[in-house]
Each structure stands twice: as C-alpha cells, then as structure tokens.
C-alpha cells in the first residue's frame, strides 16, 4: 500500500489508496428448512489520483502489479473528470466501538443454530411459510493518502432476519436484528411478527380513498429513500431536489426530527471518518420539521461552496462494492427520533387505514422529487382501531413532502431499516390508497 501511494504520489498531485478485506458467512432457512450456507472472502485495492484538477481512478482485487494499476489510473485522467478538491489530512479518527472479537469466532454452526431457533419459535406460533437466516461479516479497511492520512478501522456486523409468509401469496411479515456480534432475536420482536401475521389471515377488499397509513420498518424504505435523495448535496447541485431553497423552512411535520449520526456506536456500522477519510460528525437534517442541512462528499461540497459533511461513501443503493465504486454522497446512519406511542396505541388511532408491512416498487418513480406510488404487500386493513384483515390488491401513492407533513404520531421503538437507518413506525394521515373495490 505504502509503495503504491509513494509511486502514485510521484506521478500525480494527490493520491489516495483505499483497501479492504472482508469475510462473511450466511446461513439461510427456507420454509423452516436449511437451504444454503455461503462464505465470502472479498478484498481489493482502489486508487484515486488527482492531477491538474482532474481525477484518475483504478482498482484491482489483487495488487500484483502496482505499476499497472497506476497506469490505469493515469489513463483515466484523459477523460478530464473534474476534481477541484483536496484530499483531507485527517490524522487520528475518533475511537469508536466498531468491532467485536466475538464476531470473528462465530461459525456457520452458530448461525445455523440461531436461524433454526427462530424457525422453531415461529413454527409454534403461526402457521405460515417461514424464512429465516443469520449472517456475520468482519472487515478491515484502510485509507492512505498523500497528505498524510493513514486511517484504518475494523468492523463487524452480525444479524438475523425472519419472515412469515402468507401461504400462497409469497409475501409476509418480516423483522431483522443487527449488532456487532450475534444477539438473539428478541422474543417480543418474534411475537410482534407472529401476532400481526395471525391478524392478517382473512383477506379483505376495502374501498380506496384517502386514509391513515402506518409505515412499518420494512415499508419505511419508501419514505427514507426519498428523504435521503432530497437532502443529498448532489441532488441540490443537479437541481433535481425540491429543497434547494428551503433551508430553514418547515418541510415536514413538527413531529419529525431526523439526523445522521455515524459516531453513534451503540449500533453496528459506526464510522469515525468516511470513505474519503473526512472526519464524521452528527449532522442535523430535519429539526421539528425544519430543514437544517444537506449532506456532502468532497466533490459536491466543492461544487456547492460548502465543506464535506463526511458523507463520501464507496457504494450506493444499487452497488455496495467499495473497491469498484468511486466515493459519492451517501447517508448511511440516519436516525429518526422516536415518539412515545406503542404499536398498539398507533393502531388504536386508525379510524380507517392500512398498516403497511411491505412494499413493491419503492425504487420506481420520481425519487428526488419525493413522489412515490407503491404496491402494498402485505398490508393490514384497520377499522376503528382494530385490524380487520390483510388487504388484497392495493396501492398507496403520494409525495413525501405532503405525507410527512401529515404525521399523526411517531412510534416509540427504533427498528433497523433502509441502508443502516434506525427509524420508528410512523402514522400518517390523508394518504391516497387505491384498491379494486
């Protein structure tokens, strides 16, 4: 690494070497039976150089030929991709708890046991088709740059997930837990899933119209994807975010406070610096509905005359391969402040509406603009605070800037959701729902 950096530093004005080594194991159960055991070892080296304000980029899995990799990066300078920023001279990052040695000791057999345990509990509770699995991944990463940064971090992530599928439908209730080393999926989470499943046995076809919608962790992806897109410095620069001129204005309900906190190491995935080596910090995004800020990587910060907020990550929603993807602005530690309502209380406030447990088509539509139009699957129809049954063939549609202005109440429990986010269930009103009736 050092030698590559030295060579690259001589050939260009600035250089950065990013390297990663990852190993992971995953075990999956389908229909409550063992289906697959997978192991992955993935490593690689990625080189960024800046010369005369232009960017060069190259990567490899095996650093056999330093000169070859450097030549690839020099070759890509010919495209004249602009890079009018300086790499950071970050020296020491904050010390965070990102790795638990217990994760390295987790074996396939441990993961198999936890998956099997979840299946057994669910089998006893509900007559559905049960999917479950557990995984562990340990990685180390290092960033070296020609301005003297030499940062390294070791991370571990272990988790388990399960779903109970409504037989014949292929869709079901799902929950997940993530931590730095294996924790058992809590009984109350398993029970919550099984209870909701039981209440969705009967299918119903309610009339459509505007109604309350309770977004659960699996369906929050619809809202979060659009929030993240609308707050990205890149979307603002590209003039596709509607928020460019709304800083300091109320864009959501006063009940919503949203921030990004990579330093919070109570959860796995904490970061002291981003994939460009810029120190991370807690970033307020929405305070009581008021827009407080956008997030930037080095490139888009420079374009917008701002400073990087430490959000340059190698990977986005579609590609998580840190070696082959150049850094770009990404928000991976989003927190939505929880409220005080239990799930039961949230449901009791629905005169007529749907609990959305899963969605289809969250990736479709004009995302930066906040528009969504999703198939609901599964969703539970509620009348007068009671779950009536599972809704058949329904869609919910709207724009998040409207939907999130109409928040009735925020749930008390944080769940893992979209790309490392931690969010509570969210009850909104006046959402347009279309059904066949």
């Amino acid at each position, binding site marked *: 690494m050092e030698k590559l950096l030295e060579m690259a530093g001589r050939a260009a004005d600035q250089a950065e070497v990013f390297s990663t080594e990852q190993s992971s194991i995953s075990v999956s159960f*389908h*229909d409550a039976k*063992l*289906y*697959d*055991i997978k*192991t*992955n*070892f*993935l*490593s*690689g080296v990625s080189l960024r150089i800046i010369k005369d304000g232009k960017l060069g*980029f*190259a990567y490899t*899995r*095996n650093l056999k030929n330093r000169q070859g990799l450097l030549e690839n990066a020099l*070759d*890509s300078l*010919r*495209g004249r*991709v602009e890079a009018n920023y300086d790499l950071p001279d970050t020296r020491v990052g904050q010390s965070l708890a990102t790795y638990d040695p217990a994760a390295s000791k987790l074996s*396939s057999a441990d993961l*198999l046991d936890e998956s*099997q345990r979840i299946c057994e509990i669910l089998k006893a509770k509900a007559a559905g*088709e049960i999917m479950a699995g557990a995984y562990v991944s340990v990685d180390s990463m290092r960033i070296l740059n020609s301005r003297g940064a030499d940062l390294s971090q070791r991370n571990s992530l272990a988790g388990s997930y399960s779903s109970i*599928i*409504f*037989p*014949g*439908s*292929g*869709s079901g209730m799902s929950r997940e837990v993530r931590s730095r080393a294996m924790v058992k999926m809590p009984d109350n989470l398993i029970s919550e899933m099984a209870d909701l499943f039981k209440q969705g046995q009967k299918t119903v076809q309610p009339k459509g119209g505007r109604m309350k919608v309770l977004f659960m962790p699996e369906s929050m992806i619809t809202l979060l994807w659009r929030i993240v897109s609308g707050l990205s410095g890149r979307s603002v620069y*590209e*003039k*596709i975010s*509607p928020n460019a001129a709304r800083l300091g204005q109320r864009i959501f309900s006063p009940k919503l406070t949203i921030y990004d906190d990579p330093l919070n190491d109570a959860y796995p995935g904490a970061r002291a610096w981003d994939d460009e080596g810029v120190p991370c910090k807690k970033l307020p995004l929405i305070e009581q509905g008021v827009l407080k800020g956008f997030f930037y990587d080095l490139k888009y910060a420079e374009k917008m005359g701002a400073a990087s907020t430490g959000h340059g990550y190698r990977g986005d929603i*579609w590609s998580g391969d840190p070696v*082959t993807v*150049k850094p770009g602005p990404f928000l991976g530690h989003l927190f939505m402040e929880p409220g005080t309502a239990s799930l039961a209380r949230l449901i009791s406030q629905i005169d007529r509406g749907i609990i959305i447990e899963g969605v*289809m*088509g969250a*990736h*479709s*539509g*004009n995302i*930066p*603009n906040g528009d969504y*139009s*999703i*198939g609901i*699957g599964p969703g539970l129809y509620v009348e007068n605070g009671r779950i009536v049954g599972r809704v058949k*063939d*329904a*869609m*919910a*549609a709207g*724009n998040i800037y409207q939907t999130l202005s109409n928040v009735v109440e925020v749930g008390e429990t944080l769940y893992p959701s979209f790309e490392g986010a931690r969010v509570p269930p969210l009850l909104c009103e006046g959402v*347009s729902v*279309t059904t*066949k009736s």
Partner: protein
Amino acid sequence: MFEKLEKILAGAKADYIDIRYEEVKETAIGFSGKELTTLSANASDGFVVRVLDQGGMASVTFTRPDEAEAAVRAAEENASLFSRNTAKPVRMAKAEAVRDTFAPKLGEDPRHIPMEEKLELVRKYNNIPLAWPKVVNTSIAYSEVCRKKYYLNSEGSRIQEDLLTTSVRGLITAREGGLTQNIRVGIGGSDGFGAIRGQERHFEEKTKLVLDLLAAEPVKSGSYSCILNPSLAGVFAHEAFGHFSEADIVETLPAMRKRMTLGAKLGNGILNIIDDATQPGQLGFYQYDDEGVEVRPVQLIKNGVLSGRLHSRRTAAEFGEPLSGHCVAEDYRYAPIVRMGTIFIQPGDKSFGELLQSLWDGLYLLDAKGGQTSGENFTFGANYGYEVRQGKIGRMVRDINISGNLYQTLMDISSVGSDLRLSQIGGCGKGQSNIRSCNGGPHIIIDNLIVGGI
C-alpha cells in the same frame, strides 16, 4: 487456467465440486448534465467454489489466490454441516460433461475501440437532451462488461465462455415551474459495439417525450383496462409471472408450488410465454450457464397452461423436471441462482389498430420504469401513457404505476398483438444483479389493472 483450477480442487474429497474463475473487465463513462463524472477501464477477478457432499451443499467465493485452500476447506466443512442438519439431502440432476470454448459473434468488438471514440459517442448522445433549456439534468452512462469465465467440475466439464455486455443508459430530467419529470433512456446489447452506434433518434424521441410530460396530466388513480406496449408487456412477463417460473423461488413456498404445478391453467387461452436465451444477438443470449449446463428454450405457458419451469441442477432434481440451463451468477462474487434469460410473451395476430378498437376506453401505457414482485402481487411503473377514448389515442398522462395480482392478471390478458420486441438493456435484482436479463412481448391488452397515480 484449467490446470490452476484443477490444482485448487486437487485435495477436495467431496462427492461433487465445481469452480468458476472469472476475469471481469469493465469500462465506465458517465455524464451528469454536461459534466463528465466517470471514465475508467479496470479489471478484476475472483473464484467461486461449490461443494455437494452427502446431500449437503455449500458455496464459497474468494478473490485472493492464496485463500484457495481455506476457501475449499470452508466449503467442505459447511457442506458437511449442511448434511448433518438436513432431513432432505440435496441432489443435483444429472448433466452431461461438456468440454467447450465459446465466444459470441460480435458486430464490433468494443475492446478494440479507443476510449476517446466511446467518450465522444456518449457525449454526443448526452448533448441531445441538453440542447433543451427545460432539461435540467441528464445522467447518462456507458457500461461495457466483459466476463471471461472458466468453469470446471469434478464430473469432467471444462468450459470457457465470454460474455460481453454494452449499454448506454440513464435518465433525462426536465423541469417547468414546480414540476419535474424524468424519462429513462437505454440502448445496448450483447453482440458488440454496433448495437449502440447510430442511435441518435432514441435520444431525440425520449427528449421530446420528457418535454411533453411537463404538459401532461397526472393519471387519475383507479381501475382501467390498458394496452401495454412491448417494453411494458416484457416487464409484466418478467415481474408478474417470470419470477414464479424460477424454480428456486417456488421450491420452498409450498402453497405457491402447489398452485404452480405443471399443467395448471394459469392464464387466458391466448397467452403463450417462453424463455429463450438461445437466440444470438439478443441481450439475454448465452451458451452455458454457471454450472456448465447448455441453455435451452423453455415454453413456460402454452395456451394459458403452465408447461415448463426454469431450473438449476438442484431444483431440476427436486422437481423431477428437465434441466434448462438457467443457473446464472452476476460475476465471481456470487454463487449462481436460477435466473430468467430472455423471457417474452409470444406474439398473437392482432394489429395495434385492432387492439385500440377492442380496448375502446382505457389507457395506453408505455415503457417500463422499474418493477417489483412480492409473492403473487406485482407493481411496476410506466414512463408515460395516453388516455384512449372510443378507440382513439387522446391526451398524455404521467405518474403511472400499476399493480396487480399474478393469477388474476394472467386471466385478464384479453388480447395479444403481433409486434414482438425484445429489450436491449436489462437489470434484474434478485439478491445479485443481472444486466443481461432480457424481456419482451408484443402490445397486449390487460383488463382491470389498478393504476396508482400519485
């Protein structure tokens, strides 16, 4: 290379073992608006090992050759763990040992075209929408992915196959007042650089459409009978039905598996769907899948009746059905899973004019913009559409997402046109992505689709 791979497997004791080594060369050029954001050409490589031993199956992927021994050991240990913890041993359907080398015929080999020429072509396409003041952004990218695959298994197969995929794709965004609209663009294929030359008209037409969308009305949500154009009909075939013809999906969903028994009447009698990745020149074309099985056409629905399924060796044994050669991986980072190749609704005999007459009132929906399946339910977006009144195409509508139930919708396909078209770009995400996922169909009529609007 094969000697190297043989050496890696030399110490393995399992009943069955296979290994795939791939070199992947990727060229990427990307524009965001007028600005070039990406230009790179890189190579990477890695290995995938799969083991089947005493009814236990496991896979391992690795990228460093010095990890080979540990990787093979991990796969064997996991297969043994699997074997001890399963009541039902995994079996693989018998396949012929194949020794072959295959490279597709290319119209023009992109590897021999200078980067500057590629850059200028992409810049030219990108400049077409940017000439219009209302176009506020473009995101247009060239991608060239060349996979050189070496596959070897303990039954004697040795296959080397090249897969080359090129595309120019992205999004054009236009704005007027507070309204932004976007439209997808995409050209490409698996038969060389020729597929992306001379495509100015595609970008001109899409630009006009996105500008027209600024003056279109949002569609009123409700239930409509709709004509789907070939692009949307293809996405329908892929999303609504296709995923349930992938045996590994229905394998462990007992209720659905029962419903998807071969011979079950699933659709209207006029409906025929096939997966045929054996057609050279089409995006989905390949010779052997990633477990060394030659791909073959599979008639999935014949006259409305379920008549075939897509398989891996594992699922073919489980179902007792013929091998189909559909076990495919994204690249060396993944073990293969069952994937569609080129799925399409086979053409009928109706002209577009006849379809309009038979629809009379409803919507004409065009061009896919993302779809998803969750069990029997599916949702996908249309880039744009038109109202149809009394058999005539009327005003344009926007913000269209449709949703439906697989079984009901297959029955509700009431008319099939004669004008088959297959997609030039793909991108199916089923845990791993498949950029060669190809789909298509003719114009079709589906009765009573739910349209969500926004």
